[in-house]
Structure formats: C-alpha cells, structure tokens
C-alpha cells in the first residue's frame, strides 16, 4: 500500500474505514484544513475562533459519517457541504442567518486593490465580503472558495438554483463596486 502522504483522498478514506486508521484521517484533515477554514472564516465574517470551531466540528462530523461517503463526488465537495451545514446550523442557533435578506447599504469605499500588495487586497476583499448578505456571501464562497458548481452549491446551501445564480451575480457586482478605485 502507498505511504500515507502519497495516497489519494479515496485511498485514505478506504484506509480509514478498513483499519480505523486515524493517521490516514489526519492526513485528510491536514490536506483540506486550509480551504475549509478559509471558507468558514469568510462565512463567519472573519470570526477566526468560531470558524475554527466549526471547522473542527466539520471534520468530526466527516469522521462520524465517512462510511456514507459514496466516492462519486470529490472528498472536498463532500466536506464543504458539511462545513456549510455546520455554519448554517450555528447561524440558525444565533438567529443570524438571513439568507434572503439583502444588504444594499455598503460601507464607505476603499482603495483600489489593483495596485495594492497582496495582503492589503485580501483585507479589502474580506471587508467587501462582509458587506454582502448572508445568502450572497454563502453563494459566492460556495462557487469560488469551495469550487462547487452552481448545482452543487444549490444542493449544499439548500437554495434554489436560480437563487444561487442571482446571489452570485449580485455579489460579484457588489464586490466590484466595493473594490473599485475611488473616483473624484
């Protein structure tokens, strides 16, 4: 059998299931933690502690339900779905999830990111993202950060396909406006 580090995700899953191998699962977590935590950080509007708690919950749920993974989709797609569900459950608990509410009132503009160093443009992007409604933010994160298709995002978020497409378009328009250079 291939060494853990050289194994594919599918091989690691099989190894985890067949041998109850926590080292194999640890490799899966290690491979995907960065993207999952980034997705959750964006979803929670930069609440790092909450995002990491939800990320941990996501991987524990994945461990519990790993035998239900069907190998028809990528492991990353499956784990993002769990992450979105964890975020939505948490948000419902806090009564913060307002997926259908738009937030058209954008804060004051920011500098153009084109000329800014990478870290600054990311901060600008993070701020711009936090001005989106929950639905818009979830849709754009699903499609661009989790790399889901519109159909997959629709299933993962429990939103109609048309709503996902609308949210993505509106979110992109808002982000472009928010990140556009200030005009005098």
């Amino acid at each position: 059998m291939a060494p853990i580090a050289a194994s594919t995700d599918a091989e690691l899953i099989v190894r985890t299931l067949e041998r109850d191998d926590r080292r194999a699962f640890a490799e899966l977590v290690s491979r995907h933690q960065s993207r999952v935590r980034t997705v959750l950080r964006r979803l929670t509007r930069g609440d790092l502690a909450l995002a990491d708690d939800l990320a941990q919950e996501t991987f524990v749920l994945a461990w519990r339900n790993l035998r239900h993974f069907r190998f028809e989709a990528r492991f990353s797609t499956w784990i993002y779905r769990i992450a979105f569900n964890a975020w939505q459950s948490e948000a419902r608990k806090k009564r913060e999830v307002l997926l259908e509410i738009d937030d058209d009132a954008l804060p004051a503009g920011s500098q153009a990111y084109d000329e800014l160093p990478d870290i600054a443009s990311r901060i600008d992007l993070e701020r711009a993202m936090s001005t989106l409604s929950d639905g818009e933010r979830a849709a754009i994160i699903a499609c661009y950060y989790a790399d889901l298709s519109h159909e997959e995002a629709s299933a993962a978020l429990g939103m109609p396909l048309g709503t996902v497409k609308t949210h993505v378009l509106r979110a992109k328009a808002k982000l472009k406006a928010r990140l556009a250079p200030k005009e005098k």
Partner: protein
Amino acid sequence: MTDPDKLERLLRRDARSDLADDGFTARVIAALPAREGAVHHAWLKPALVLGSAALGSALAFALAPAGVDVAQGFLALATSRALTPAALGGLVLSGALVVCAIVLALDTE
C-alpha cells in the same frame, strides 16, 4: 474595477491562501469519538445475525410440537416422495428466515 476577471482572480487567489495548520489537525484527531461499529469488527454483525438465524432454526426444528411431522415432511421432500403441507410450510419459513438473515447481514448501515 475595469477588468471583470480581476475579481475572479482575487477570489480564487484568496481561496487558495494557505493557512498554517498550527495544531488544528491534532485538535481534530484528539476530538474524534470512538467509531461505532468500526469496520475491523464488521464480521461481528453478520456472524451474530446468521448465527442467531441458524440457532433459531435448529431450536425451532428440535422443539416444535409437530416436529415429527415436519421432520417426516422434510424427509419425504428430500426423497422426492411427497411434498406435504408441513414440509412446504417449514421450507417457506426457513427460506424466509435465511433471506431475512442475509439481508440483515449485508446491511452495513
């Protein structure tokens, strides 16, 4: 923003940003519960189901009040002399029991 691709590039670049593990994986592994019905004990369930079915069939056969008739029925069936109602009933019940046991044994959920 004049270039519509710039936003997409920025989003994708942000998505690919590499977060240091900082002990996250270790915390997840420490939080994992013991797996119920781990696969290395996967033989246990089918063995219990099929064993119970076999034991139940044997006990039913041995202790049934009409055991003699059923036994005679099976004997007649085995020797192709006659298919008595008792033998037929026993055969159907045994078959159903075995099918149920196999279905339960194969059910991994």
